[in-house]
Protein backbone atom coordinates (compact mmCIF):
# COMPACT_ATOMS: atom_id res chain seq x y z
CA UNK A 1 0.00 0.00 0.00
CA UNK A 2 1.43 3.35 -1.01
CA UNK A 3 1.16 5.96 1.72
CA UNK A 4 0.86 9.65 0.91
CA UNK A 5 3.72 12.02 1.67
CA UNK A 6 3.41 15.66 2.65
CA UNK A 7 6.06 18.38 2.75
CA UNK A 8 5.66 20.13 6.10
CA UNK A 9 8.79 22.27 6.44
CA UNK A 10 11.44 24.06 4.40
CA UNK A 11 14.82 25.56 5.24
CA UNK A 12 17.32 27.19 2.92
CA UNK A 13 20.77 28.78 2.82
CA UNK A 14 21.41 30.28 -0.59
CA UNK A 15 23.04 33.01 -2.65
CA UNK A 16 19.58 34.62 -2.73
CA UNK A 17 18.87 34.53 0.97
CA UNK A 18 19.11 32.39 4.08
CA UNK A 19 15.42 31.86 4.72
CA UNK A 20 12.52 31.06 2.40
CA UNK A 21 10.94 34.54 2.65
CA UNK A 22 14.08 36.42 1.62
CA UNK A 23 14.84 33.81 -1.01
CA UNK A 24 11.38 33.99 -2.54
CA UNK A 25 11.32 37.79 -2.53
CA UNK A 26 14.64 37.92 -4.34
CA UNK A 27 13.96 35.33 -7.02
CA UNK A 28 10.46 36.51 -7.86
CA UNK A 29 11.89 39.99 -8.29
CA UNK A 30 14.45 38.54 -10.70
CA UNK A 31 17.41 39.57 -8.55
CA UNK A 32 20.65 37.76 -9.22
CA UNK A 33 22.79 36.22 -6.49
CA UNK A 34 25.73 35.96 -8.90
CA UNK A 35 28.55 38.42 -8.34
CA UNK A 36 32.27 39.01 -8.66
CA UNK A 37 34.08 36.93 -6.08
CA UNK A 38 36.35 38.64 -3.62
CA UNK A 39 38.81 35.87 -2.68
CA UNK A 40 42.52 36.60 -3.05
CA UNK A 41 42.87 34.04 -5.84
CA UNK A 42 40.03 35.42 -7.92
CA UNK A 43 42.28 37.48 -10.16
CA UNK A 44 43.90 34.21 -11.30
CA UNK A 45 40.61 32.89 -12.70
CA UNK A 46 39.19 33.48 -16.16
CA UNK A 47 35.67 34.09 -14.91
CA UNK A 48 35.81 35.76 -11.53
CA UNK A 49 32.19 35.09 -10.68
CA UNK A 50 30.14 32.83 -8.46
CA UNK A 51 26.87 32.71 -6.57
CA UNK A 52 28.16 33.05 -3.01
CA UNK A 53 26.26 32.74 0.23
CA UNK A 54 26.54 35.53 2.81
CA UNK A 55 26.73 33.61 6.04
CA UNK A 56 28.05 34.35 9.51
CA UNK A 57 28.63 31.01 11.26
CA UNK A 58 28.56 32.69 14.67
CA UNK A 59 24.89 33.47 14.09
CA UNK A 60 24.21 29.73 14.15
CA UNK A 61 27.03 28.00 16.03
CA UNK A 62 29.27 28.30 19.07
CA UNK A 63 33.04 28.77 18.67
CA UNK A 64 33.87 25.09 18.79
CA UNK A 65 31.38 24.10 16.12
CA UNK A 66 32.53 26.88 13.85
CA UNK A 67 36.01 25.35 13.80
CA UNK A 68 34.84 21.71 13.68
CA UNK A 69 32.32 22.05 10.88
CA UNK A 70 33.33 22.56 7.28
CA UNK A 71 31.28 25.31 5.62
CA UNK A 72 29.19 22.73 3.77
CA UNK A 73 28.16 21.13 7.07
CA UNK A 74 27.38 24.54 8.55
CA UNK A 75 25.05 25.22 5.65
CA UNK A 76 23.39 21.82 5.99
CA UNK A 77 22.74 22.23 9.71
CA UNK A 78 21.46 25.78 9.28
CA UNK A 79 19.06 24.70 6.52
CA UNK A 80 17.91 21.71 8.58
CA UNK A 81 17.31 24.01 11.53
CA UNK A 82 15.14 26.24 9.35
CA UNK A 83 13.12 23.28 8.13
CA UNK A 84 12.72 21.74 11.57
CA UNK A 85 11.46 24.99 13.08
CA UNK A 86 9.21 25.62 10.08
CA UNK A 87 7.60 22.21 10.51
CA UNK A 88 7.35 22.73 14.29
CA UNK A 89 8.37 19.10 14.66
CA UNK A 90 8.43 17.36 17.99
CA UNK A 91 9.19 13.64 18.08
CA UNK A 92 9.36 11.13 20.92
CA UNK A 93 11.99 8.39 21.05
CA UNK A 94 9.83 5.83 19.28
CA UNK A 95 8.95 8.30 16.51
CA UNK A 96 12.62 9.17 16.10
CA UNK A 97 13.33 5.51 15.27
CA UNK A 98 10.98 5.95 12.30
CA UNK A 99 12.62 9.24 11.22
CA UNK A 100 15.68 9.60 9.05
CA UNK A 101 17.92 11.93 7.08
CA UNK A 102 18.80 11.72 3.37
CA UNK A 103 21.19 14.38 2.11
CA UNK A 104 22.58 14.99 -1.34
CA UNK A 105 26.18 16.15 -1.45
CA UNK A 106 28.36 16.48 -4.54
CA UNK A 107 31.90 17.01 -3.35
CA UNK A 108 31.67 17.39 0.42
CA UNK A 109 34.13 19.21 2.68
CA UNK A 110 35.94 21.04 -0.08
CA UNK A 111 37.31 23.79 2.16
CA UNK A 112 38.87 21.23 4.48
CA UNK A 113 40.41 19.36 1.53
CA UNK A 114 41.97 22.53 0.20
CA UNK A 115 43.15 23.64 3.64
CA UNK A 116 44.86 20.28 4.11
CA UNK A 117 46.64 20.38 0.76
CA UNK A 118 47.76 23.97 1.25
CA UNK A 119 49.30 23.01 4.60
CA UNK A 120 51.04 19.91 3.27
CA UNK A 121 52.15 20.99 -0.20
CA UNK A 122 52.40 24.73 -0.08
CA UNK A 123 53.37 25.40 3.52
CA UNK A 124 55.40 22.19 3.96
CA UNK A 125 53.78 21.42 7.24
CA UNK A 126 53.77 17.83 8.38
CA UNK A 127 50.22 17.65 9.61
CA UNK A 128 46.71 18.84 8.87
CA UNK A 129 43.89 19.87 11.19
CA UNK A 130 42.94 16.96 13.48
CA UNK A 131 39.33 16.76 12.40
CA UNK A 132 40.08 16.99 8.68
CA UNK A 133 38.66 13.54 7.95
CA UNK A 134 35.42 14.46 9.69
CA UNK A 135 35.16 17.74 7.83
CA UNK A 136 35.93 16.22 4.45
CA UNK A 137 33.79 13.07 4.52
CA UNK A 138 30.68 13.80 2.59
CA UNK A 139 28.36 11.94 4.92
CA UNK A 140 29.07 14.47 7.66
CA UNK A 141 26.14 16.73 6.80
CA UNK A 142 23.54 13.97 7.11
CA UNK A 143 25.13 12.58 10.25
CA UNK A 144 25.34 15.93 12.01
CA UNK A 145 21.65 16.52 11.25
CA UNK A 146 20.80 13.07 12.58
CA UNK A 147 22.78 13.76 15.76
CA UNK A 148 21.28 17.23 16.23
CA UNK A 149 17.68 15.98 16.10
CA UNK A 150 18.21 12.47 17.47
CA UNK A 151 16.86 10.81 14.33
CA UNK A 152 17.73 7.13 14.52
CA UNK A 153 16.11 5.91 11.31
CA UNK A 154 17.99 5.62 8.00
CA UNK A 155 20.75 8.22 7.53
CA UNK A 156 22.23 8.24 4.03
CA UNK A 157 24.18 10.53 1.77
CA UNK A 158 23.47 10.39 -1.93
CA UNK A 159 26.02 11.65 -4.39
CA UNK A 160 24.92 11.99 -8.01
CA UNK A 161 26.53 15.32 -8.85
CA UNK A 162 23.89 17.84 -9.92
CA UNK A 163 21.03 15.46 -9.12
CA UNK A 164 22.21 14.53 -5.61
CA UNK A 165 19.59 16.30 -3.56
CA UNK A 166 16.76 15.62 -6.00
CA UNK A 167 17.60 11.94 -5.65
CA UNK A 168 17.85 12.39 -1.86
CA UNK A 169 14.36 13.89 -1.71
CA UNK A 170 12.95 11.29 -4.10
CA UNK A 171 14.43 8.38 -2.20
CA UNK A 172 13.29 9.87 1.12
CA UNK A 173 9.80 10.18 -0.39
CA UNK A 174 9.90 6.47 -1.23
CA UNK A 175 11.04 5.59 2.31
CA UNK A 176 7.86 7.08 3.71
CA UNK A 177 5.57 6.02 0.88
CA UNK A 178 6.71 2.43 1.15
CA UNK A 179 6.48 2.32 4.93
CA UNK A 180 10.13 2.37 6.00
CA UNK A 181 9.89 5.72 7.76
CA UNK A 182 7.27 8.24 8.88
CA UNK A 183 9.36 11.43 8.90
CA UNK A 184 12.37 12.24 6.73
CA UNK A 185 14.57 15.31 6.60
CA UNK A 186 15.76 15.42 3.01
CA UNK A 187 17.79 17.86 1.00
CA UNK A 188 21.31 18.72 0.06
CA UNK A 189 24.34 20.91 0.62
CA UNK A 190 27.39 22.13 -1.25
CA UNK A 191 30.10 24.67 -0.52
CA UNK A 192 33.12 24.25 -2.72
CA UNK A 193 34.11 27.69 -3.92
CA UNK A 194 37.84 27.09 -3.45
CA UNK A 195 40.76 27.76 -5.74
CA UNK A 196 41.27 24.10 -6.60
CA UNK A 197 37.61 23.55 -7.37
CA UNK A 198 37.35 26.65 -9.56
CA UNK A 199 40.42 25.57 -11.53
CA UNK A 200 38.95 22.10 -11.98
CA UNK A 201 35.70 23.43 -13.41
CA UNK A 202 37.59 25.95 -15.53
CA UNK A 203 39.61 23.12 -17.04
CA UNK A 204 36.43 21.32 -18.08
CA UNK A 205 35.44 24.40 -20.11
CA UNK A 206 31.85 24.51 -18.91
CA UNK A 207 31.92 27.71 -16.89
CA UNK A 208 30.15 30.81 -18.13
CA UNK A 209 32.18 33.73 -19.38
CA UNK A 210 31.81 36.84 -17.31
CA UNK A 211 29.20 39.15 -18.79
CA UNK A 212 31.27 42.18 -19.83
CA UNK A 213 28.66 44.71 -18.73
CA UNK A 214 27.28 43.15 -15.59
CA UNK A 215 28.84 40.09 -13.90
CA UNK A 216 25.55 39.33 -12.17
CA UNK A 217 24.05 38.57 -15.58
CA UNK A 218 26.57 35.91 -16.52
CA UNK A 219 24.28 32.87 -16.17
CA UNK A 220 21.97 32.89 -19.19
CA UNK A 221 19.87 29.71 -19.37
CA UNK A 222 18.10 29.09 -22.69
CA UNK A 223 19.62 32.24 -24.20
CA UNK A 224 21.30 32.19 -27.61
CA UNK A 225 24.43 33.70 -26.05
CA UNK A 226 24.56 31.35 -23.06
CA UNK A 227 28.11 30.30 -22.32
CA UNK A 228 27.97 27.87 -19.43
CA UNK A 229 27.27 27.51 -15.77
CA UNK A 230 28.07 29.71 -12.81
CA UNK A 231 29.12 27.84 -9.67
CA UNK A 232 27.14 28.45 -6.52
CA UNK A 233 26.91 27.16 -2.96
CA UNK A 234 24.14 26.59 -0.46
CA UNK A 235 21.90 24.09 1.25
CA UNK A 236 18.21 23.25 1.42
CA UNK A 237 16.25 20.79 3.53
CA UNK A 238 12.59 19.80 3.45
CA UNK A 239 10.64 17.89 6.07
CA UNK A 240 8.65 15.01 4.61
CA UNK A 241 5.93 13.36 6.67
CA UNK A 242 3.44 10.59 6.19
CA UNK A 243 0.25 12.47 5.27
CA UNK A 244 -2.14 11.21 7.96
CA UNK A 245 0.40 11.93 10.64
CA UNK A 246 0.97 15.43 9.28
CA UNK A 247 -2.73 16.21 9.09
CA UNK A 248 -3.38 14.78 12.56
CA UNK A 249 -0.80 17.01 14.24
CA UNK A 250 -1.86 20.12 12.32
CA UNK A 251 1.45 20.44 10.48
CA UNK A 252 1.91 23.04 7.76
CA UNK A 253 0.97 21.33 4.50
CA UNK A 254 3.02 22.86 1.71
CA UNK A 255 2.47 20.16 -0.85
CA UNK A 256 2.14 16.47 -1.48
CA UNK A 257 4.98 14.73 -3.31
CA UNK A 258 3.22 12.64 -5.91
CA UNK A 259 5.94 11.32 -8.17
CA UNK A 260 9.65 10.65 -8.62
CA UNK A 261 11.52 9.46 -11.67
CA UNK A 262 15.11 8.26 -11.51
CA UNK A 263 17.01 7.10 -14.59
CA UNK A 264 20.51 6.90 -15.97
CA UNK A 265 21.46 8.08 -19.46
CA UNK A 266 24.04 5.29 -19.83
CA UNK A 267 25.39 7.38 -22.65
CA UNK A 268 28.17 9.83 -21.87
CA UNK A 269 29.81 11.10 -18.74
CA UNK A 270 28.90 14.73 -19.48
CA UNK A 271 26.70 14.96 -22.56
CA UNK A 272 23.01 14.53 -21.74
CA UNK A 273 20.75 12.08 -23.51
CA UNK A 274 17.29 12.95 -24.77
CA UNK A 275 16.17 9.42 -24.01
CA UNK A 276 17.44 9.45 -20.43
CA UNK A 277 15.93 12.82 -19.58
CA UNK A 278 12.56 12.26 -21.21
CA UNK A 279 12.24 8.84 -19.62
CA UNK A 280 12.90 10.32 -16.17
CA UNK A 281 10.10 12.80 -16.78
CA UNK A 282 7.75 10.10 -18.06
CA UNK A 283 8.58 7.86 -15.11
CA UNK A 284 7.80 10.63 -12.66
CA UNK A 285 4.48 11.28 -14.37
CA UNK A 286 3.74 7.55 -14.40
CA UNK A 287 4.68 7.29 -10.74
CA UNK A 288 2.26 10.13 -9.98
CA UNK A 289 -0.37 8.58 -12.25
CA UNK A 290 -1.03 11.92 -13.93
CA UNK A 291 -1.05 12.93 -17.57
CA UNK A 292 1.58 15.38 -18.80
CA UNK A 293 -0.88 18.22 -19.30
CA UNK A 294 -1.58 18.23 -15.55
CA UNK A 295 1.74 19.96 -14.93
CA UNK A 296 1.39 23.74 -14.46
CA UNK A 297 5.02 24.75 -13.90
CA UNK A 298 8.43 23.21 -14.49
CA UNK A 299 11.56 24.27 -12.66
CA UNK A 300 14.20 23.46 -15.24
CA UNK A 301 17.64 22.05 -14.64
CA UNK A 302 18.64 24.90 -16.95
CA UNK A 303 22.36 25.15 -16.29
CA UNK A 304 22.99 27.49 -19.25
CA UNK A 305 25.34 25.07 -20.99
CA UNK A 306 24.75 24.63 -24.70
CA UNK A 307 23.95 20.96 -24.34
CA UNK A 308 21.76 20.90 -21.27
CA UNK A 309 19.39 23.65 -22.27
CA UNK A 310 18.95 22.26 -25.77
CA UNK A 311 18.38 18.66 -24.66
CA UNK A 312 16.14 19.65 -21.79
CA UNK A 313 13.97 21.64 -24.19
CA UNK A 314 13.77 18.62 -26.49
CA UNK A 315 13.00 16.27 -23.61
CA UNK A 316 10.14 18.46 -22.40
CA UNK A 317 8.77 18.64 -25.94
CA UNK A 318 9.09 14.89 -26.38
CA UNK A 319 7.03 14.14 -23.28
CA UNK A 320 4.54 17.01 -23.36
CA UNK A 321 4.07 17.37 -27.11
CA UNK A 322 2.34 20.60 -28.07
CA UNK A 323 1.37 21.18 -24.42
CA UNK A 324 5.06 21.93 -23.82
CA UNK A 325 4.46 25.40 -25.21
CA UNK A 326 1.72 26.08 -22.66
CA UNK A 327 3.70 25.25 -19.53
CA UNK A 328 5.91 27.96 -18.01
CA UNK A 329 9.39 26.58 -17.42
CA UNK A 330 12.01 28.72 -15.69
CA UNK A 331 15.60 28.21 -14.66
CA UNK A 332 16.27 29.83 -11.33
CA UNK A 333 19.95 28.89 -11.69
CA UNK A 334 20.05 32.19 -13.56
CA UNK A 335 19.84 33.75 -10.10
CA UNK A 336 21.20 31.29 -7.53
CA UNK A 337 23.78 29.65 -9.77
CA UNK A 338 24.51 25.94 -9.98
CA UNK A 339 24.75 24.67 -6.43
CA UNK A 340 25.55 21.07 -7.52
CA UNK A 341 24.80 18.91 -4.44
CA UNK A 342 22.26 21.43 -3.16
CA UNK A 343 20.68 22.17 -6.56
CA UNK A 344 17.92 19.59 -6.54
CA UNK A 345 16.75 20.60 -3.07
CA UNK A 346 17.00 24.36 -3.59
CA UNK A 347 15.09 24.04 -6.84
CA UNK A 348 12.49 21.75 -5.30
CA UNK A 349 11.92 24.44 -2.68
CA UNK A 350 11.44 26.95 -5.51
CA UNK A 351 8.74 24.65 -6.90
CA UNK A 352 7.06 24.37 -3.48
CA UNK A 353 7.10 28.15 -3.08
CA UNK A 354 5.47 28.45 -6.49
CA UNK A 355 2.62 26.30 -5.15
CA UNK A 356 2.44 28.24 -1.91
CA UNK A 357 2.46 31.70 -3.46
CA UNK A 358 0.79 31.00 -6.81
CA UNK A 359 3.53 32.96 -8.55
CA UNK A 360 6.38 31.99 -10.87
CA UNK A 361 10.00 33.20 -10.77
CA UNK A 362 11.63 34.16 -14.07
CA UNK A 363 14.62 32.97 -16.04
CA UNK A 364 16.66 36.14 -15.95
CA UNK A 365 19.30 37.28 -18.45
CA UNK A 366 17.20 35.90 -21.30
CA UNK A 367 17.88 38.74 -23.68
CA UNK A 368 18.66 36.79 -26.83
CA UNK A 369 16.15 34.00 -27.48
CA UNK A 370 17.51 30.84 -29.05
CA UNK A 371 15.28 29.54 -31.86
CA UNK A 372 16.07 26.00 -30.76
CA UNK A 373 14.90 26.81 -27.23
CA UNK A 374 11.49 28.24 -27.91
CA UNK A 375 9.39 27.28 -24.92
CA UNK A 376 7.92 29.74 -22.40
CA UNK A 377 10.90 30.22 -20.09
CA UNK A 378 9.26 33.13 -18.24
CA UNK A 379 11.88 35.51 -19.53
CA UNK A 380 13.20 38.14 -17.13
CA UNK A 381 9.99 39.01 -15.32
CA UNK A 382 8.17 36.83 -12.80
CA UNK A 383 4.43 36.22 -12.85
CA UNK A 384 1.90 36.68 -10.07
CA UNK A 385 -1.65 35.52 -9.76
CA UNK A 386 -1.16 32.30 -11.68
CA UNK A 387 -3.03 29.07 -11.03
CA UNK A 388 -0.53 26.36 -10.25
CA UNK A 389 -1.60 23.02 -8.80
CA UNK A 390 1.11 20.67 -9.98
CA UNK A 391 4.82 21.41 -10.31
CA UNK A 392 7.75 19.49 -11.71
CA UNK A 393 11.44 19.93 -10.86
CA UNK A 394 14.15 18.56 -13.15
CA UNK A 395 17.74 17.61 -12.32
CA UNK A 396 19.96 16.18 -15.03
CA UNK A 397 23.46 15.43 -13.85
CA UNK A 398 27.01 14.87 -15.05
CA UNK A 399 27.39 11.14 -15.08
CA UNK A 400 23.94 10.85 -16.62
CA UNK A 401 21.75 10.47 -13.56
CA UNK A 402 18.37 12.13 -14.05
CA UNK A 403 15.97 12.89 -11.22
CA UNK A 404 12.52 14.39 -11.63
CA UNK A 405 10.18 15.29 -8.77
CA UNK A 406 6.48 16.08 -8.94
CA UNK A 407 4.49 17.87 -6.24
CA UNK A 408 0.88 18.93 -5.94
CA UNK A 409 -0.85 21.60 -3.90
CA UNK A 410 -2.84 20.23 -0.97
Amino acid at each position, binding site marked *: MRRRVAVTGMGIISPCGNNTSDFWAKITAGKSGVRKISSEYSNLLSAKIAAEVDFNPSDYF*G*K*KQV*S*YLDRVNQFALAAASGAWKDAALSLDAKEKERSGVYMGVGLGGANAIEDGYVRLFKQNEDRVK*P*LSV*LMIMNNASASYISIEYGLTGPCLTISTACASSANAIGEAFRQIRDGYADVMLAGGAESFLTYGVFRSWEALRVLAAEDPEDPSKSCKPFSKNRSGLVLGEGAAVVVLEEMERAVRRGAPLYAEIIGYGSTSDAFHITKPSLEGQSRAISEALGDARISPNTVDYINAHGTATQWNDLLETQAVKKVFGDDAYKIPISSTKSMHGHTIGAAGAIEFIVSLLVLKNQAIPPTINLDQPDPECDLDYVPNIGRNGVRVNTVMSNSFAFGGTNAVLLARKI
Partner: protein
Amino acid sequence: MSTIERLKKLFINKFDFNVEELKPETTLEYLGLDSLDKIEFMFDIENEFKIKIPDEQFKVTTIQEMVDAVDRFVSEQVSHSPSPAMSY
Protein backbone atom coordinates in the same frame (compact mmCIF):
# COMPACT_ATOMS: atom_id res chain seq x y z
CA MET B 1 53.12 34.72 30.18
CA SER B 2 53.09 31.53 32.21
CA THR B 3 52.22 28.16 30.75
CA ILE B 4 48.85 28.11 32.47
CA GLU B 5 48.02 31.56 31.19
CA ARG B 6 48.92 30.56 27.65
CA LEU B 7 46.84 27.38 27.91
CA LYS B 8 43.88 29.32 29.25
CA LYS B 9 44.15 31.70 26.32
CA LEU B 10 44.09 28.78 23.87
CA PHE B 11 41.07 27.34 25.65
CA ILE B 12 39.14 30.56 25.44
CA ASN B 13 40.00 31.00 21.76
CA LYS B 14 38.78 27.54 20.90
CA PHE B 15 35.84 26.92 23.21
CA ASP B 16 33.07 29.00 24.74
CA PHE B 17 34.45 28.94 28.30
CA ASN B 18 34.85 31.77 30.79
CA VAL B 19 38.33 32.28 32.20
CA GLU B 20 36.96 31.85 35.76
CA GLU B 21 35.97 28.24 34.95
CA LEU B 22 39.57 27.35 34.15
CA LYS B 23 41.24 26.60 37.45
CA PRO B 24 44.25 24.28 37.84
CA GLU B 25 42.11 21.59 39.42
CA THR B 26 39.33 21.82 36.81
CA THR B 27 38.92 18.47 35.07
CA LEU B 28 38.57 18.17 31.31
CA GLU B 29 35.53 16.02 31.99
CA TYR B 30 33.92 18.87 33.93
CA LEU B 31 34.54 21.14 30.97
CA GLY B 32 32.70 18.62 28.79
CA LEU B 33 35.64 17.94 26.51
CA ASP B 34 35.57 14.65 24.63
CA SER B 35 38.23 12.77 22.68
CA LEU B 36 37.84 14.93 19.58
CA ASP B 37 38.16 18.11 21.61
CA LYS B 38 41.33 16.70 23.12
CA ILE B 39 43.06 16.02 19.82
CA GLU B 40 42.03 19.42 18.53
CA PHE B 41 43.47 21.01 21.63
CA MET B 42 46.69 18.99 21.38
CA PHE B 43 47.10 20.41 17.87
CA ASP B 44 46.78 23.95 19.19
CA ILE B 45 49.18 23.25 22.06
CA GLU B 46 51.76 21.80 19.65
CA ASN B 47 51.53 24.95 17.53
CA GLU B 48 51.66 27.34 20.46
CA PHE B 49 54.58 25.74 22.33
CA LYS B 50 56.43 24.34 19.29
CA ILE B 51 56.40 20.83 20.68
CA LYS B 52 55.27 17.41 19.51
CA ILE B 53 52.96 15.44 21.75
CA PRO B 54 53.12 11.68 21.11
CA ASP B 55 49.66 10.08 21.25
CA GLU B 56 50.28 7.90 24.28
CA GLN B 57 51.85 10.60 26.43
CA PHE B 58 48.99 12.99 27.01
CA LYS B 59 46.80 11.15 29.47
CA VAL B 60 45.90 14.27 31.42
CA THR B 61 42.65 14.79 33.32
CA THR B 62 43.04 18.26 34.82
CA ILE B 63 44.34 21.60 33.63
CA GLN B 64 47.26 21.39 36.06
CA GLU B 65 48.22 17.98 34.66
CA MET B 66 48.12 19.53 31.22
CA VAL B 67 50.40 22.37 32.34
CA ASP B 68 52.87 19.88 33.85
CA ALA B 69 52.88 17.76 30.69
CA VAL B 70 53.43 20.77 28.46
CA ASP B 71 56.29 22.05 30.62
CA ARG B 72 57.90 18.61 30.52
CA PHE B 73 57.67 18.42 26.72
CA VAL B 74 59.01 21.93 26.36
CA SER B 75 62.06 21.23 28.53
CA GLU B 76 62.68 17.94 26.68
CA GLN B 77 62.17 19.18 23.16
CA VAL B 78 62.75 22.88 22.84
CA SER B 79 66.37 24.18 22.71
CA HIS B 80 67.96 24.37 26.11
CA SER B 81 68.72 28.11 26.01
CA PRO B 82 66.55 29.73 28.64
CA SER B 83 63.55 31.61 27.41
CA PRO B 84 61.53 33.93 29.66
CA ALA B 85 58.30 32.91 28.03
CA MET B 86 58.77 29.38 29.31
CA SER B 87 58.94 30.32 32.97
CA TYR B 88 56.15 28.97 35.06
